[in-house]
């Protein structure tokens, strides 16, 4: 007889042998004892946790010659026939192959006949989720009120595909994933019986890889034993399953800490040559990083199951990396693991990911960053007078306001108006605005500036081209765009620094670029840009502007209208509430 794999050889034959599903087996046993059996059962759960097995045991328990019993004898002809799958009263149907309505009609026909030699007629329909809709519906009536001798047992891995009308007619049992320890226990029993020597850590590896499925773990054990014979070591298992050994992760961690890129490439090369799967390497690496993080956070080693030999190194690494760096690394690795599955060149991805880890500069913790900002704020507190407060201060610091402006204010030509703060505040943003720039100067240099911006950033340059240079005011350059170009304005403001640098280069003066989306007669909903900083100064300021600029103002008639409304208080509100202004 040909070789029988463990999963088949060790298929449980009584309820007590079913591992890790006590909530199901105990319930079924009690039901049998108290003679309260339902006429339809639905077993659901992940692959390889014992659904079909339990179904068969239940069938035997019902039909055993010595039954109905909770412990089928497995010796009588009925039990034997069920085990061999040729009982005429227990029909095991492959729902995936016999999924049509015709098959179900035949099944319904056959339910009418009483069982040939046992008490019940049991229909085990495996992979029941594959039945067609029509087939399911054809079953409904029979399922609700079957003849007294009939028991249906459905088994499926995908309960979500089974219609609710079927679900409500069945007693449902959800099979759970099996705990690793229980799997290890079961594998140990198998190994002892077959006289296989195997290291505990190897069993742990298998259990982990099987992800709660008994069949998976038994297949893996089979695979391992067929490779190693009767003596199995952990290294063999890791090698065979393409699992990466802890040493390798420790080594990677080491190389990352030392920022040794040569070493990293060498490791990646080794991984490739040994035929380790890059995806599972990353998965393992993530687990390792996770373990280190947990160790760092909790300080306890309880979660490092089966890794007792590496506690020292784990602790070292936990000390070497900061929490935030570990979290970032986990992110990088997780991203890469997702990408690598579909990658054409996994080796390249692996190398790149590992190098990224090694090159990652240590993060500054957010809290430190915040304190830093706070301190900075304290130092520069004078420059941050809110507009409303400014209103209450009649005197303006002469150093902070440009000379001409100050001269005119002090000469009594203009009163202190809160809207002026707008201009002065922006000026404060440019501490080194010593020399004033004129419109002419900018105008002549403008084409060159645009070209230079284009060379650096093509898109920004072409956006800038659309704008109209309207005036220069206290080193602030106003560029007006058509209202429809709101997007351009937003992206230009993002790139403001770049353009200002270029202007500095070209004209030799530091300026503030101000891009405005010129709204035509008071729009119902202004551009967000316009709300954030009311772009257009009032007449007062324009009076201050150079003569050239005043001429230009004629062109910007529509813009002025928007500015005529005073938004300073509303602006302040919008700003502090991070909201949006909706005008009615």
């Amino acid at each position, binding site marked *: *007889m040909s070789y029988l*794999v463990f999963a088949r050889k060790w298929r449980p034959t009584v309820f007590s042998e079913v591992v890790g599903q006590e909530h199901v087996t105990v319930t079924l046993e009690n039901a049998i004892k108290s003679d309260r059996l339902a006429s339809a059962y639905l077993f659901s759960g992940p692959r390889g946790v014992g659904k079909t097995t339990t179904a068969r045991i239940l069938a035997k328990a019902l039909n055993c010659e010595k039954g109905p019993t909770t412990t089928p004898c497995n010796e009588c002809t009925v039990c034997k026939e069920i085990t061999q*799958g040729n009982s005429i009263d227990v029909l095991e149907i*492959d729902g*995936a192959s016999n999924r049509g309505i015709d098959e179900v009609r035949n099944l319904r026909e056959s339910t009418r006949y009483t069982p040939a030699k046992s008490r019940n007629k049991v229909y085990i329909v495996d992979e029941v989720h594959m039945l067609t809709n029509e087939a399911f519906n054809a079953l409904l009536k029979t399922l609700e009120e079957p003849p007294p001798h009939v028991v249906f047992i459905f088994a499926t891995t995908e309960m979500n595909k089974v219609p609710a009308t079927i679900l409500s007619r069945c007693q449902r049992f959800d099979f759970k994933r099996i705990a690793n320890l229980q799997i290890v226990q079961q594998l140990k029993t198998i190994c002892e019986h077959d006289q296989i020597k195997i290291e505990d850590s190897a069993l742990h590896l298998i259990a982990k890889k099987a992800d709660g499925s008994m069949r998976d773990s038994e*297949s893996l054990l089979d695979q391992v034993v067929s490779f190693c014979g009767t003596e199995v070591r952990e290294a063999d298992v890791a090698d065979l399953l393409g699992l990466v050994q802890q040493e390798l992760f420790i080594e990677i961690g080491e190389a990352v800490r030392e920022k040794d890129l040569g070493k990293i490439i060498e490791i990646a090369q080794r991984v*490739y040559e040994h035929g380790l799967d890059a995806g599972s390497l990353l998965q393992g690496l993530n687990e390792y990083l996770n373990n280190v993080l947990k160790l760092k956070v909790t300080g306890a080693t309880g979660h490092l199951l089966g890794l007792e030999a590496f506690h020292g190194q784990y602790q070292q690494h936990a000390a070497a990396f900061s929490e935030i760096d570990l979290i970032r690394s986990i992110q990088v690795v997780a991203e890469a693991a997702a990408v690598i599955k579909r990658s054409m060149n996994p080796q*390249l991805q692996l190398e*790149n990911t590992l190098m990224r880890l090694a090159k990652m500069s240590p993060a500054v913790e957010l809290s430190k960053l915040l304190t830093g900002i706070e301190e900075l704020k304290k130092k520069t507190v004078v420059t941050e007078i809110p507009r409303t407060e400014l209103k209450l201060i009649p005197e303006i610091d002469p150093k902070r306001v440009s000379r001409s402006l100050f001269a005119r204010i002090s000469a009594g030509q203009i009163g202190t108006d809160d809207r002026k703060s707008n201009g002065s505040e922006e000026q404060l943003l440019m501490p080194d605005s010593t020399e004033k720039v004129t419109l002419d100067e900018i105008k002549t240099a403008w084409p060159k500036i645009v070209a230079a911006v284009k060379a650096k950033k093509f898109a920004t340059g072409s956006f800038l081209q659309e704008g109209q240079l309207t005036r220069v005011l206290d080193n602030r350059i106003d560029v007006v765009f058509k209202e429809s170009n709101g997007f351009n304005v937003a992206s230009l403001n993002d790139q403001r620094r770049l353009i200002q640098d270029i202007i500095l280069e070209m004209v030799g003066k530091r300026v503030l670029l101000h891009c405005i989306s010129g709204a035509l007669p008071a729009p119902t909903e202004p551009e967000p840009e316009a709300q954030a900083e009311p772009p257009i100064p009032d007449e007062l300021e324009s009076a201050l502007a150079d003569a050239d600029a005043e001429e230009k103002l004629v062109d910007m008639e529509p813009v002025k209208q928007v500015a005529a409304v005073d938004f300073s208080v509303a602006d302040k509100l919008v700003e502090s509430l991070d909201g949006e202004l909706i005008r009615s």
Partner: protein
Amino acid sequence: MAVTFDNILGQPHAKAFLNRAFVHRRISHAYLFVGAEGTGKAAMALEFAKALLCTGTEKGSQPCQQCVDCRHIAELNHQNLVFWFPHPKSAKEADLQAVRASMIEQPYAFKKPWPNATISIDTVRGLKRELGLKSHQGRSRVIVITDAHCMTAEATNSLLKILEEPPEQTYFVLTSDRSDQLLPTVISRCQMLRFNQIGVADLEDGLRVIDGHDDTLKRQAARLANGSMRRALELLDEDMLALNGHAVELMRATFKSPSQSAIFALELAQKYDKASIQQILENLLLWLRDALLILNLDAEQAKAHVTNENEMETITRFVERAPLFDFQQAIREIEISVEMINRYVQPGLVLTVMLNKLRQFVQARSAQHAA
């Protein structure tokens, strides 16, 4: 007693594993071979069948390759061998025959002319009927399902029962290069064997016996094939050096104006078919990998690992010109491009868009650097 699978290139791991299964007489009834295209999965499946069915030598030892059974398996017409590959229902018998012929002639160059074909539930039902009968001469049966992920959901599900508990002396070998698309319930029923990219040296060995082409060309093909024998064979038939040259030109185009690079992209797309363009992009990836290595390692180390050894100077210059080039993003973009071409987006369009993105990476980063 040992089965060494000498015909298979590389894969020491898989060979050792199957050999031990024979030695320990623990041959599972279902294997799943997974690994990239052209790594020898189907070829190995046939060798495995020969080892089970060979009558020229003692059972379970090295197949003789000469007996009737071995020859019939190699010709894919053994009575106890079932060999499936995805094909459309409407496929003509002549076309199917052509596919089989390609497999018989050179297992690594197994042609797959129908990229989106499936294996249907009817095929599986047919198999189940057949497996209900006794096997021919009462001997082992081997069912090879290539590209098992191409089975429809219905077909896969209806295979489950028989895959878990097949009749005696029935062995399944499933192969797949997209094991992530297989149902977990299938994987759980099989012993999974991973097939790795074939090493350059092994590929060179494999190419040595191919007629025609001079040795330098073969060496180059082995290096560029990314561990796939099938790719290496295809490369030999293509104008490989030109394709590799185009990869470099693509990179150069990212430094040119958008219109120039668009014209270049369209020219490429006109000149070459889908597969060649994909190869160009794959070469580009290898080229970027070299750049990455040169950027990060010192010269000696880099030299030991790079693919395009004779282009190190060009690559070094590139690294100098775009020191902050975003490799991560670039690699991603190129892979997306390959996938899009696979999905029948116009290659010219894909290349143009890709070049534009790459240009951004080159320029944005260098601008930042300058600042």
